[in-house]
């Protein structure tokens, strides 16, 4: 890898051993205990606080302070990896907001204008119904498995002004049963049972919904804004047919779920390893966001290997920095940026809401069943389902 070579040239006493690694919360502890965890690894936003609380990631506050751009971080971004005392345990390397992904080709076939994606949820519903009736494929699809159902339901709830938990720390309670989530589920229920615009298959997780979308079997769905990268590298999507827009917001408190990736160092690393790890963090993950030469080199490497360059992302250092980095790599952009313009132009004016922090994955798992019930049972009683889910999550909170 080019970056490995340049890094080792710069720091000859450090050796970098890349290893193929997939974040999996289920096996994380096993990997720690079995010693197979890489020194530096990636973690989604939702999981870093748990790792901090469990003492499994190293404190890198002082090492980060030495970096040239230490003061330029967006404080909200920093907060993601800080503990209550303000000590830093990892760094955010990528942030995304949930967006609406749609298939331009299917839009055209259904008589819709691919250059004007739906702006309200009613319009989404109409578009979905049109696609379903004109083309026979699902107009809209919803993730529902492997905790992604809960994740997306949370996102949809935010769009309707709901919040899934109240309070923080020791005083947190679950508010899974709230008007926003109810509205979200009723919306899905209507599309499923009244319009029949959700197709016939409902057991989707993050990977399989991408696959279905790339294969032209789904008209619209919601997922992280960076999903295009995966659609290109793993699912062979046709760039012409891809469109990205922002989620419609409905109601006063509506917002967009934002998440991202954190890179952290395992707590069992030696001080030398932690130091090297932070240097690698800087060199590989962050330098390209603040340094023009690094950005261009990185974009060049990606473009040459056929990887996508230019997919919209959320700023880690602030909007101006993001605009500047975009300008640096403008020549290498190989994604259909104009088809994503709706997202890029509007995401920053939407309120960004972080994911709930208490027992997130377990709550998502519980919500998976709720979504699956709504999708597969015409008589699903949303109120009861949400009440049950809420009491289950509260029970979890009390137990811990």
């Amino acid at each position, binding site marked *: 890898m080019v970056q490995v070579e340049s890094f080792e040239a710069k720091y000859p006493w450090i050796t970098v051993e890349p290893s193929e690694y997939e974040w999996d919360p289920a096996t994380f502890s096993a990997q720690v205990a079995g010693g*197979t965890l890489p020194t530096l690894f990636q973690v989604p936003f939702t999981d870093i606080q748990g790792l901090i609380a469990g003492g499994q990631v190293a404190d890198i506050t002082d090492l980060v302070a030495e970096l040239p751009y230490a003061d330029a971080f967006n404080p909200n971004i920093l907060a993601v990896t800080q503990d209550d005392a303000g000590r830093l345990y990892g760094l955010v390397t990528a942030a995304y907001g949930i967006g609406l992904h749609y298939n331009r080709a299917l839009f055209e076939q259904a008589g819709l204008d691919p250059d004007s994606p739906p702006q309200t949820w009613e319009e989404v519903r109409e578009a979905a119904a049109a696609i379903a009736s004109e083309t026979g494929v699902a107009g809209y699809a919803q993730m529902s498995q492997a905790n992604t159902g809960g994740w997306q339901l949370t996102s949809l709830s935010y769009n309707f002004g709901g919040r899934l938990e109240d309070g923080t720390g020791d005083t947190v309670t679950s508010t899974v049963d709230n008007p926003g989530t109810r509205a979200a589920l009723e919306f899905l229920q209507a599309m499923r049972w009244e319009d029949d615009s959700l197709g016939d298959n409902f057991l989707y997780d993050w*990977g399989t919904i991408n696959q279905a979308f790339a294969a032209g079997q789904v008209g619209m769905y919601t997922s992280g804004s960076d999903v295009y990268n995966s659609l290109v590298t793993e699912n062979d999507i046709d760039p012409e047919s891809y469109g990205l827009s922002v989620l419609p917001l409905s109601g006063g408190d509506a917002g967009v779920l934002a998440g991202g990736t954190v890179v952290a160092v395992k707590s069992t690393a030696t001080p030398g390893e932690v130091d090297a790890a932070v240097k690698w963090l800087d060199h590989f993950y962050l330098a390209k966001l603040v340094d023009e030469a690094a950005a261009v080199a990185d974009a060049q490497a990606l473009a040459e290997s056929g990887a996508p360059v230019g997919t919209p992302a959320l700023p880690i250092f602030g909007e101006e920095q993001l605009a500047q980095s975009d300008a640096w790599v403008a020549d290498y952009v190989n994604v259909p940026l104009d088809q994503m313009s709706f997202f890029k132009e509007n995401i920053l004016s939407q309120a960004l809401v972080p994911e709930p922090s208490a027992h997130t994955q377990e709550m998502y798992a519980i919500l998976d069943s709720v979504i699956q019930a709504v999708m597969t049972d015409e008589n699903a009683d949303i109120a009861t389902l949400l009440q049950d889910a809420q009491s289950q999550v509260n029970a979890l909170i009390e137990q811990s």
Partner: protein
Amino acid sequence: MTDLARRSSITEEPAEGLSEDWHPTAGGGSKEMAPDRRSEDADRSLVSIAERRQAGIKWGLRLTFGLLLAGLVIVGLGPLLWLGKASISTTQDTLRAPFAFWPSGVDWQNLVTAWTEAEISRYFMNTVWLAIGAWLVQIFVATTGGYVLAVLKPRYAGLLYGLVLATLFVPVVVLLVPLFLTVLDVPGLGISLLNSYWGIWLPAGASAFNVILMKRFFDNLPGEILEAARVDGAGPFRMLWSVVLPMSRPILGVVSVFAILAAWRDFLWPLLVLLDPAIQPLSVRLPLIRDTVELDVFLASLLVSTTIPILLFLGFQRLFLRGPGLAGAIKG
């Protein structure tokens, strides 16, 4: 014989049949051979010869056999044939017209892509390594153990055999978590076998079925040969290596085929132990790449994963379908 003994002897019956078939003639029929049924059942199954001559029954039988053949081919073979067809079809064909015969043409490229880009070749080799290692460990443990229990028979043999048998009555699920923790931190050695093939190979050796099969086989070896070897001054090791093993080829064959097959089919345990994608076998990898690989290439990958077991089966049919099939069926 009490019911319990008879029930537990279901695992011993196959070995009985086995020893009868492969009983070395030098021993001279010391066990009662089961009467040869072949000449008898050619003319005596439930429907008698007289009945078969009756028109109604004759046609009834023909219809039954026809339905049976159709049923077995369509239901049993059908899915596999479809897999073969679909693995060389394009994705759109499979999605839109699953039973059409290649409207867009045959796509042999799928197999190549699966083998190279989807790196099925690597996972195939991983599975091969897993199978070879597990096979060696199982043969080694079962042969040495069975030999001691059956031939050397020290005083603790009975106790040991009982402990081995006892593990048969414990459902595998009970072992799942504690075995995982044990592999994570092997007692006494303090090392972790996680992410290493040894974490698969070694636990595979703890198979009571294998020990039972080997022990029963050794039990039925002709005593005279062993006695003669001992008189000639052969110690336990010599006897095992030079006398017992050469006579054991049939049972070693049985244990080997089933060991390899079991390793090829193993899913949950490798899923838990082998976390590094580079060393995962086919059974673990296929579900994980389902959504990142195009459907046609994925189907080609599935086809590749079925080749070795099917070839093993077709090549060693007798092993599966005669008496030992019983042991394999229960084990599988």
